[in-house]
């Protein structure tokens, strides 16, 4: 079933110029003597590029065959990552190139959202925040709580996060996966 412009809502996914898009924002516009249009800001689900189009009332929009599934990350193969659908227990293998930068903050057993386009995984979205145990870090100087000074700490994924000097191996820290930044200590060694 194709859509038309009256179906446009935030989050509607449709095809344009051969790529799937999702609606970010939309507004009714109408020149006094012309047809109604929907000014639509949309994001390309494959590239993340955002663009704006004036879609004329009555224009057909083709449905995008996209689906978001919650999946658990199980383990890593040679050059791919294996996930399990949390409702069907089906396993899928997704190439490293698709997982991309997400892998740095994707510890085993974490639940992620995977976007499928034409039944092919195209994007992996992590939760915004994760809590991870520090595997290794240089011991900080006793009593030094200066907030300006940081040191690297390694987590289970192998990623390195800049943490304050008081963090020691075994502490559990909260990380913003979008920026890779340390937020706070949530558990002590």
């Amino acid at each position, binding site marked *: 079933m194709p859509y038309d412009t009256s179906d446009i809502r935030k989050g509607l996914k449709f095809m344009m110029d051969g790529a799937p898009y999702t609606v970010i924002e939309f507004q009714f516009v109408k020149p006094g003597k012309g047809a109604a*249009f929907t000014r639509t800001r949309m994001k390309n689900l494959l590239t993340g590029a955002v663009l704006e189009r004036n879609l004329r009332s009555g224009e057909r929009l083709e449905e995008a065959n996209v689906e978001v599934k919650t999946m658990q990350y199980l383990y890593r193969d040679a050059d791919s990552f294996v996930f399990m659908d949390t409702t069907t227990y089906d396993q899928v293998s997704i190439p490293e190139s698709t997982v991309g930068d997400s892998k740095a903050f994707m510890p085993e057993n974490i639940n992620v959202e995977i976007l499928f386009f034409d039944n092919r995984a195209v994007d992996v979205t992590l939760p915004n925040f994760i809590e991870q145990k520090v595997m290794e870090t240089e011991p900080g100087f006793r009593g030094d709580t200066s907030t300006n000074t940081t040191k690297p700490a390694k987590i289970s994924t192998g990623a390195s996060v800049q943490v304050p000097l008081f963090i020691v191996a075994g502490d559990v820290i909260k990380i913003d996966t979008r920026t890779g930044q340390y937020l706070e200590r949530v558990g002590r060694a």
Partner: protein
Amino acid sequence: MIDEADRLRARRPALEARARVLSSIRRWFEGEGFLEVDTPARVRAPGQEVHLDALASEDRWLVTSPEYAMKRLCGAGYERIVSIGKCWRAEERGPHHESEFTMIEWYRAGAPLEKIAADCEELVGLAVQAAGRAPEGPAFASWSGAPPFRRATVRELLAAHAGIDLRGDEPASELADKARAAGIALGSATAWDDIFFQVWLDRVEPHFAAGTPLFVFDWPSPLGALARPHPQDPSLVERFELYAGGLELANAFGELTDPEEQRARFTRESEARRARGKTTYPLDEALLAALARMPPTAGVALGFDRLMMLVLGISAIRDVMPFASDEI
């Protein structure tokens, strides 16, 4: 969910300004020798334009503008008339649209279109003053609120912003080729006006957001509606639109007074409505008869709610009216 009383109290300053502006506008029209006329809200023949849809009221239609009744008065020798009243347009709702809104429409017999433009400049200036507070919003960042406004033609704007050389009477397929060559995605548009407005919205209108208001003159003849042909160029009509602060504020015509030409245009509009699967409306024979008696006249419709949005720097039309359609 905002409490209704809180919402209504928050709107009070805008509603007070609205009342002040309205009374100063009425005084101005009186000073100019205008007769204010209350034309009917329910009519047998609403506007024929392809893209205006009327709301039904029993066996009548609510007016999309008071134009036809006012021209019947013009045809009977009323030289300066103004109507300040509600109009209704189905399916129009957004930050700049409410399906029920207030229109100020006026006609001057024997006046050139430029006189109507001067009226608009005066009225906007009057509204800025009567609003009683410093004007706000994007339009006023680089404009004091005083006339004169800027003036441009549709051709100039299409050339400058879209790189399109518009004639005005080219076939739709030729216009589509020009638009595609300029890199504009037309979707399934094949009608002349649909192609034109895709170009207009994509490339031209974004330039109207800020600065001194702009009169856009000399519209292509396929967008003529009730305007007379341009005396120097029959591919154009005598029409202007006034844009201010990103809002389309007013539309004016040097009025077409040739009943046969008007009948042909109405018939074309009606056919276009049928082709698009829209309701068709009866021809207003009383209007066509009146056009034959009408002297050369210029007239304009100005959206009063949008005028208030402009001078108060308010971005949502609902905030200049006590109740929007979904708050009733």
